[in-house]
């Protein structure tokens, strides 16, 4: 459905392009804004290499603005750059850099306002507060862009790709680094985020709020301050993503809050402080994921209900599962746990005794976090062993009745 939209967008833009004239723009010769004002609807502007010190460039008619070998549009750290207020505009091959910083307005490199069928592709967005800012737009595609910034804190910086109140977006193959949030979605529906790489952002690699019916696939979220947050949404599909080394005091692979009816499948979680943190989530299917060397593979708060955890591999995590309650309304089944030491006499490849993924020390630290000072002491090892033999404190319903004897092959 989404890719068909994209094809339609491209088809139309190509078809109309043929009709318009081609106008060359050189640095110093007139300016970009006057050329845009003079151009007719459907024209193609070839912006040649050089430095364009222009700002607040308003694109209010359907144009294709094409950079020839990345012309530089520089905002001098004071202004905003592109405003796109017409449908079906194509912007490609530009180097858009140095927007201003302001606490009054969100200064963006390329801003899309109330438009549809706009394509922004192959651009370099350097040191902007916001890279690409989509506002109340639909059927837009953001493709193959690179957004780099050097944000130091959350307050004075913006997001790489920011979308607010949009629908049917396609965000694909972008590389975002050094912003506040890599990709930010708020009230965005029916959209697809795929093949993006979001690394070293100050806050979240992907920040997702009130956005339903979206999918994010094959993205990489690495080394972000707090990983990925998905909040207050429904029907979100997360497939084949990599969440790696989101490592810090309050970092998560994915933080899920008030999410329901979603899927988390075939993802890789490696070296995150907490791979998945769940709070108030319902009916989520967590299946065939790989959890490797995380601090906590999962922290499931007692407010979660009817979630299904199936066919995952849990390996070398400090804690497999932690929870803050004794009630457990979620199901674990057919997962592989490297800490499982049961046996399989009937050779059906699943262990004959259930596995309890919550260790007593995990329960204790969840209740009284200060006990973390005893991490890796003998006492806690012994407590875990004793509890394994005689379970009394750990939540009884939280168990995997069919723990796998062998690792799932998820390659």
């Amino acid at each position, binding site marked *: 459905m989404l890719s068909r939209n994209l094809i339609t967008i491209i088809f139309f833009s190509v078809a109309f392009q043929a009709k318009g004239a081609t106008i060359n723009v050189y640095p110093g010769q007139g300016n970009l804004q006057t050329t845009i004002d003079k151009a007719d609807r459907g024209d193609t502007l070839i912006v040649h290499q050089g430095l364009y010190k222009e700002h607040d460039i308003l694109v209010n008619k359907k144009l294709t603005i094409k950079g020839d070998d990345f012309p530089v549009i520089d905002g001098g750290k004071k202004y905003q750059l592109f405003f796109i207020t017409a449908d079906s505009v194509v912007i490609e091959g530009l180097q858009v850099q140095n927007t201003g910083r302001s606490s009054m307005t969100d200064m963006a490199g390329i801003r899309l306002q109330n438009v549809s069928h706009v394509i922004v592709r192959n651009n370099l967005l350097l040191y902007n507060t916001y890279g690409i800012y989509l506002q109340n737009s639909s059927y837009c595609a953001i493709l193959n862009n690179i957004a780099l910034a050097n944000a130091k804190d959350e307050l004075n910086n913006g997001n790489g790709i920011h979308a607010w109140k949009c629908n049917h977006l396609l965000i694909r193959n972008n590389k975002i680094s050094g912003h506040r949030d890599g990709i930010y979605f708020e009230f965005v529906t029916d959209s697809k985020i795929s093949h993006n790489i979001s690394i070293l952002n100050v806050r979240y690699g992907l920040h997702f709020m009130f956005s339903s019916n979206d999918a994010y696939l094959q993205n990489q979220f690495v080394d972000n301050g707090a990983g990925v947050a998905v909040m207050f949404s429904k029907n979100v599909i997360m497939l084949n993503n990599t969440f790696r080394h989101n*490592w*810090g*005091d*309050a970092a998560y692979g994915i933080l899920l809050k008030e999410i329901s009816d979603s899927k988390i499948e075939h993802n890789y979680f490696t070296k995150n*402080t907490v791979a998945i943190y769940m709070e108030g989530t319902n009916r989520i299917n967590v299946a065939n994921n790989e959890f490797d060397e995380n*601090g906590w593979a999962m922290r499931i708060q007692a407010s979660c209900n009817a979630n299904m955890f199936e066919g995952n591999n849990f390996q*070398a995590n*400090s804690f497999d599962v932690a929870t803050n309650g004794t009630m457990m309304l979620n199901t674990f089944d057919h997962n592989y746990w490297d800490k499982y030491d049961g046996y399989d006499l009937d050779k059906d490849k699943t262990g004959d005794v259930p596995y309890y993924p919550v260790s007593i020390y995990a329960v*204790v*630290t969840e*209740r*009284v*976090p*200060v*006990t*973390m*000072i*005893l*991490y*890796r*002491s*003998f*006492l*806690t090892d*012994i407590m875990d062993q004793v509890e394994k033999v005689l379970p009394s404190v750990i939540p009884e319903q939280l168990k995997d009745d069919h723990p796998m004897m062998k690792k799932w092959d998820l390659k």
Partner: protein
Amino acid sequence: MKTIIKYVSLDLLRNKTILIYTALLAVISISVLNMDNNASKGLLSLMNITLLFVPLISILFATIYFFNSIEFIELLLAQPIKRNKVLLAEYTGLVLSLCAAYAIGVGLPLLILTKQVAALVLLVNGLLLTLTFSGLALLIFVLCKDKTRGIGIAIVISLFFSLLFDGLLLTFIYSFSDYPIDKPIVGLVALNPIDLSRILMLLQLDVSVLMGYSGALFKKLLGSAAGSIYAVVCMMFWVTVPLLIATLKFRKKDL
């Protein structure tokens, strides 16, 4: 004094227990470090082994050795040598050979097989633990007359520090969990050399984040250089204070 140290350490280097101890440590370290590709995981296992075996073996072996050499000490005391010198020489000789055992058994494989700062910290930790628990053994030797009782106390002390103390700490944390107890806990931990060296080691590895996760204070205090210095200084106290008490008591001890 140098002569006594030389005799004690030469005597101990020929001791079979020390040789076995060295070989055992070497075998364990090499196998643990080779077993896992992840060096920091190997270090963690090695840390567990160090924290379990080094205190126990140091204190037991040292206590037995001191009690066994009581006749040698009496003989030396008949000579015109200061009492403290005899005692300290005995201690130094013993500690030299135990530290050599640890340095060869664990230190060498660590330096060859890993290239992390944490490996050095582990080495220093093991040596400090050896010093501490040998010192405690010396204190037991000075305070007790009877060898059997001395050994009993040595076992109790090593069990206390490796297990019981943490249990008490856990009870304390549980009973006062409604209060801000981060700071008292950091203070209390200083009372146990094994905990100190465990924390000092964890702070070098990336799992230290897990500790920061639960309390900002742990991260702030223990995660900084000041935290490591604090731990090392406390360990130094653990080395020197038992020695000091032992020498003071030994001055007036009736042999």
